[in-house]
C-alpha cells in the first residue's frame, strides 16, 4: 500500500484493513490492490482492551427478550447453555450442534468464561473446561470468535466451516495471552519512589525503518510500583521520567531518566523481547543527582519572545526542563540540570519557522556559565518536479485499476507531496512542501526524501539534489550551507504484479507485502487474498512475502531484511509488464 498524505503526520502506519472504524479518518482502502473475496473485518475492543477481530456473515436478529434470556442462561450456567438459534437465516443445512473449546495458545490450558460468538447472532461464555456449545446451527459456514480480557485473537482468527454437519467435530479456538511488564522503582536508600513517571517504549516500524516510540505512560504508585499490561509479543523498553524530590531549590535533587535495557549495539539488543503471556519484572533505581545551574546566552532568536530548551540524555531520553529562565531582551538563560552529560537544544520560532541549536553540556565538570547557543537559519531547497507521462492515463477512474491519489484525478498531471525526513535523530518530518515549491529553513542533519505523488499511477523515477542521488543516498545538510536544488522526475510507466497464494488456509488472512529492495524512495505495498493483482508497481526489485501478521517489516534496513529473504520470493518489476509470483504463507517474526 502506498501511504497517503494524511497518514504522514502521526508516524504510525495505519492498518485500516483491520480498523474499518478508523478508516473514516484515513484514505480509502488500497488503491492499487484488487481484493478478491476479501473478508470484511472489524475490531472490537473489550473493556479490557483486547483487540479481537470479528468477521460477520449474513446476519439475523433476535428479539430483546430472547437476548436477555440468553444472557441469563449463559450467566447462571456459566456458558453451558445451548440456546437454539432463531432460524431467520436461509437454511442451507440441517440444524446441527457446534461444540468447541477455547484454549490458551501458550499453555494449552482451557480458558474459563471466554465469550464465544457465532456469526453475528449469538454468544455464550465457556465453562471451566473452556467448552462451549451452540445448538440448532443451520449455516453451512460461519465465523466464530472468542474473546476474553487478557487475551488477544490469534492472527488470522478462526472460521468454522461445517462441510459435514453430522460430524459434530469439536472446534478449537485459541487465544493469545497478553504479556505484562511490571516493576518497582526505588530510591538510593532502597525505599519506593512514588509518582515517578514511567514510559513504555516499543520498537515499531514505519516507512520501513525501525524506531522506538512511546506506547504508554504511567506513574508509580505509593509502593513505587508500575505496571504495563495488554502487551502483545514484541520488543519493548522501560524509561523512567524526570522527577525531582524535595522542595524546588538548588539544594533539591533530581532523578535522572534511566532506560532499561540501556541502548546497545543493535535495536534488538536494546529491547526487552516479550513472548505472548510473558510477565517480565523490571525493577529500576534511577541515579539521583543534585541540580546544578547552567547559564549562558542564546543568539539568533530574532523577534521570538521565547526560547524553549530541550534536554536529552545521551540515550535520547528527555529530561524535564520546565525550570528554565530566559530573558528575551538580553538572550541570557539559566537552567537547572542534574549532574551528568546532556544534549541541550534551544528552540525558537523565528518568523514562522522553528529553528534550533544544539550543544553538549556536562555538569558539574564543565563551567556552569558561558554556554552559548547560536540559532541559525537552515538551508533553502528549491524543488522542481518533472512529470513524464509515458502511458496514456486511464480515463475511467472507476475502472478496476484505481488511479489517482487522495486529491489527484486520473488524467491530470500529478503534483507531489514532498518531505525530508530526518534520519539522524528519532524525530518527525522536519519540513514539507507540496508541489513545485521551496522547502525552507531545513536545519542541518541527514535526511531521506519522501515523495507522495497525488496520482497513484506515478512513481519517482529519479531524484537528486546537488549531485546526490536521493533514490539511493541520504541528503546531508551541513551547518551554514545554502542547500541544493531538489529535482524529482515522476513517471507513470509502472508495472504490475500478479500474486497467487499457495498452500495454507484458503480462508486465511495472510497479507502479501511487496518490500522494495535497494533504494530509499519506494514504499512497501500490501494486499490480501488468494489471488490478486498489484496494479501500479514502480519498477525495481521487491521481496514478496505472505505474512501471518500485519506488521510492516523494516525494509529500509538491508541487514534486518536479510533474515526474511528465505520466507518470500524476490522479483524484479519492469515497466509496463506483468510479473507473476507465487507465495506461500509464512510465519514471519515481526
Amino acid at each position, binding site marked *: 500500500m502506498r501511504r497517503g498524505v494524511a497518514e504522514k503526520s502521526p508516524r504510525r502506519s495505519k492498518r485500516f484493513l483491520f480498523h474499518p472504524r478508523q478508516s*473514516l479518518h484515513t484514505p*480509502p482502502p488500497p488503491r492499487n490492490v484488487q481484493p478478491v473475496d476479501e473478508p*470484511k473485518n*472489524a475490531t*472490537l475492543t*473489550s*473493556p*479490557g*482492551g483486547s483487540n479481537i477481530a*470479528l468477521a*460477520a*456473515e449474513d*446476519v439475523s*436478529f*433476535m428479539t*430483546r427478550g430472547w*437476548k*436477555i434470556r*440468553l*444472557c*441469563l442462561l*449463559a*450467566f447462571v450456567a456459566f456458558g453451558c447453555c445451548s440456546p437454539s438459534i432463531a432460524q431467520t437465516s436461509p437454511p442451507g443445512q440441517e440444524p446441527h450442534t457446534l461444540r468447541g473449546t477455547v484454549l490458551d495458545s501458550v499453555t494449552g490450558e482451557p480458558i474459563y*468464561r471466554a*465469550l464465544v460468538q457465532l456469526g*453475528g*447472532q*449469538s*454468544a455464550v461464555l465457556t465453562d471451566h473446561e473452556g467448552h462451549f456449545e451452540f445448538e440448532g446451527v443451520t449455516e453451512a459456514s460461519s465465523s466464530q470468535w472468542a474473546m476474553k*480480557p*487478557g487475551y488477544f485473537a490469534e492472527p488470522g482468527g478462526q472460521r468454522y466451516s461445517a462441510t459435514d454437519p453430522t460430524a459434530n467435530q469439536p472446534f478449537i479456538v485459541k487465544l493469545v495471552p*497478553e504479556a*505484562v511488564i511490571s516493576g518497582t522503582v526505588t*530510591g538510593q536508600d532502597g*525505599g519506593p*519512589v*512514588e509518582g515517578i513517571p514511567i514510559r513504555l517504549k516499543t520498537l515499531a516500524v514505519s516507512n520501513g525503518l525501525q524506531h522506538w516510540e512511546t506506547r504508554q505512560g504511567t506513574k508509580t*504508585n*505509593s509502593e513505587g510500583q508500575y*505496571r504495563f*499490561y*495488554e502487551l502483545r509479543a514484541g520488543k519493548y523498553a522501560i524509561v523512567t521520567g524526570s522527577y*525531582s*524530590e*524535595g*522542595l*524546588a*531549590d538548588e*539544594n*533539591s535533587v533530581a532523578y535522572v531518566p534511566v532506560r532499561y535495557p540501556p541502548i546497545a549495539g543493535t535495536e534488538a539488543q536494546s529491547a526487552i523481547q516479550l513472548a505472548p503471556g510473558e510477565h517480565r519484572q523490571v525493577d529500576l533505581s534511577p541515579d539521583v543527582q543534585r541540580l546544578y545551574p547552567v547559564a549562558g546566552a542564546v543568539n539568533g532568536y530574532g523577534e521570538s519572545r521565547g526560547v524553549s530548551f530541550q534536554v536529552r540524555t545521551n540515550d535520547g531520553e528527555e529530561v524535564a526542563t*520546565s*525550570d*528554565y*529562565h*530566559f*530573558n*528575551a*531582551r538580553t538572550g*541570557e538563560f*539559566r537552567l537547572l540540570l542534574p549532574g551528568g552529560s546532556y544534549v541541550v537544544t534551544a528552540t525558537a520560532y523565528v518568523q514562522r519557522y522553528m529553528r534550533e541549536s544544539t550543544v553538549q553540556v556536562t555538569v558539574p565538570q564543565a563551567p556552569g556559565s558561558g554556554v552559548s547557543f547560536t540559532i541559525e537559519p537552515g538551508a533553502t531547497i528549491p524543488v522542481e518536479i518533472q512529470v513524464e507521462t509515458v502511458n496514456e492515463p486511464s480515463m475511467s477512474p472507476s475502472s478496476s485499476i484505481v488511479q489517482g491519489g487522495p486529491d489527484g484525478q486520473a488524467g491530470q498531471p500529478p503534483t507531489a507531496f514532498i518531505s525530508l525526513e530526518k534520519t539522524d535523530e528519532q524525530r518527525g518530518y522536519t519540513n514539507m512542501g507540496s508541489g513545485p515549491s521551496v522547502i525552507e529553513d531545513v536545519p542541518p542533519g541527514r535526511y531521506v526524501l519522501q515523495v507522495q505523488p497525488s496520482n497513484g499511477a506515478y512513481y519517482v523515477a529519479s531524484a537528486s539534489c546537488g549531485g546526490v542521488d536521493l533514490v539511493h543516498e541520504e541528503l546531508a545538510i551541513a551547518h551554514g550551507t545554502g542547500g541544493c536544488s531538489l529535482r524529482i522526475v515522476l513517471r507513470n510507466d509502472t508495472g504490475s504484479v500478479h500474486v497467487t497464494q499457495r498452500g495454507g488456509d484458503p480462508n486465511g488472512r495472510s497479507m502479501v507485502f511487496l518490500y522494495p529492495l535497494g533504494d530509499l524512495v519506494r514504499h512497501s505495498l500490501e494486499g490480501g487474498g488468494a489471488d490478486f493483482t498489484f496494479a501500479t508497481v514502480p519498477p525495481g526489485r521487491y521481496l514478496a512475502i505472505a505474512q501471518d501478521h500485519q506488521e510492516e517489516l523494516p525494509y529500509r534496513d538491508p541487514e534486518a531484511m536479510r533474515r526474511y529473504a528465505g520466507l518470500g520470493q524476490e522479483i524484479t518489476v519492469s515497466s509496463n509488464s506483468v510479473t507473476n509470483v507465487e507465495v506461500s504463507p509464512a510465519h514471519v517474526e515481526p
Partner: protein
Amino acid sequence: MWNPKPTSTVARLATFLLANALALATTAPSQQTPPAHPAAPAYRISGKVVDAHSGAALARCSVQIADVKFRSQTRTTLTAGDGSFAFDGVPLGKYSLTAQRRGYLEQSYEEHEQYSTAIAVGPGLVSEDLLFKIVAEGVIAGTITDEAGEPVRGAQVRLFEDQDTNGIRTTQMHQTETTDDRGFYEFSRLRPGAYYLVATARPWYAQRLQQQSHFENGQQSEAPQNQVLDLAYPTTFYPGANDQDSATPIPIKGGDRLEANLTLAAQPAMRLHLAAPPAATGHGPSINGGGVNLSLSQSIFGQREMLPTQISMNPDGSADIEGVLPGHYDVTLNRFTPGQNRPETKHFDADVSGGSTELSEDASASEVVVTGKVVALAGKLPPNSWIVLRRPRSRPRQSGNIDEAGNFSVRVEPGTYEVIGNISDMYIAGLRAQGAALVGRMLTVKADDAPKLDIVAARGHAEIEGTALRGDKPASAVMVLLAPEDPKNNEILFRRDQSDSDGTFDLPNVVPGKYRLLAIERGWDLEWANPAVLQAFLAKSVPIEVRSGDHPKQAIQVQAR
C-alpha cells in the same frame, strides 16, 4: 496566612519557576532581590519536624522558608537525624514554612485548607523551637472483582470525601481511578478524613456484536448491531451496597494504608430509547447528525457522575443507551451546531423501572438563559470579565463573558444559584433581578423563566488587618472569620484567614458593607457558613462596617469552641 499554594508539587514547582521566569523576563537579575539592609539584625527560624500521628521525629525532611512578600526568595534545608532544622541570618519579616518528605503530604506549618501560619521574625517574636507536625499520606487500595471472582479491568473507582470546606460539611468527589488488569486500584496521598468508595463498570462480555460494515456512496455506515449478554453492574458503594445511604465511610488516619475490595454482581439491564427529534426527518440536526453527544449520569452524593454505558446512534436519528439498570438518571444531550462554540444542551429525567424506557426530546428540560447588564460605577469594566452562576456547594458552575457594552448571558438548568462577579479589581455593589426571585446573592431560576439581571460593579475593595489575642498575648494559628450580615444569602462575602505566629491576620478584598469579625480556636472543622452554627459565636464577635477603600486595623479576642 492564606497560602497561594497549588495542591500538587508539580504545579507548585511550576508556579515557583514561572514567578522567577517572569521576574527575569522583565527585570535584570540584580534587581530581582529585595532591598538589602546591610546592618539589619538577623533572626533565626528553627524547630523540629515530627509525624503528626505518632510524634516521631522525621529525619531527611525537606524544609523551606519563603518570604511572604517575595515568595520566589526561598531557602531550603534538610532536617537532621532528630528532625531538627534551623535557618540562621533571617532578615526581619514573615516567612511561610513548608515541609516535604517521601511518604508525606507536602504541607505548610499549621496548615488548614488553603491557610497556614507564617512565622514572623523580629524583636520579641518567638520563631524558634517550632514543632512542625506533618501528616503521612493515607492510602486506600484494593481490587474490584466480578461475580465469578475474576478481576474487573477498567472499572471506574471514585473516591468521595467528607469535607469541611468553606464552612460547610459536604461529601465531595476527591479522585477517580481506573482498575488495571488485576482489577487493582489505588488512591494515595490522602489526607486524614472519611472517604466513600464507589465503583462503576460495564461487564466486559456485555458486548455489542459487531457486524459487517458497508460502504455506501463512498461513506461507511454500520449495519444494525446485536446486543448480547445484556447485563450491567449496579453502581456499588463500599462495602458492597447498591445505594448510597448504605455506604460506609472509610476512616483514614495519617499513614494508614487500608484495603477496600468490592465485588460487582451483574443484573439484567434495560435499554433507554431516545426518539428522534422531529427535525431529524428533514435536513435538521438528527441525534446521529455527528455533532451530538449523549451521556448518562447518576447523582452520587449529590454530584452528577457519568456512568459507563454503550450508546448507539440509529440510522433513523434516534439513539439507544444500553446497559441501564432500574433507577433514576439524567440523560444529557449536547448538540453542536457549526459556527457555535457551545452546544445546545438538553437534560432528560429518566426513571427506568423495567423493560425499555422511551424518552422524547419534548420531555426534556431545556436550559434557561439568564441575561443581564453590568454597569461600572466609575471608570470602565476591565476586559475578560465574567458573571458566574454557582449552585451552592456544588462544583459545576456556569459563566458568561461580559462584552464591551456590559451585556452577558449565562445558560443554566433551573435551580438556585449564587451570582458572582469575576471582574478584576471590582465587586458587585448592586444587584437586581427581573423575571426570577432574588434574595441577597441567591437567584432562583425556574423553567421557562427569562431572568434579567442589573448589576452595578464598583472598585475599591476594603482590607481589614489586625491581631488575634488570647488575653493580651498574640494567638497563633486561630481561624479569623469575617461574616456578612444575612450570611445565608451572601456566602460569597465571607472572608477568612489564619493568624500568623505573631497573631496577625489580613483579610483583603472585602466588599464594602456590614460584617461581624470573629476569631475561633480550632474553628476549621466548624460549619461556620451554616447560620445556625454561626449564631452561637456572634455574641463574642466584633461588629465592623467598611466603606470602599477602607483599611482598618482591628484586634479580636479568640473564643473557644
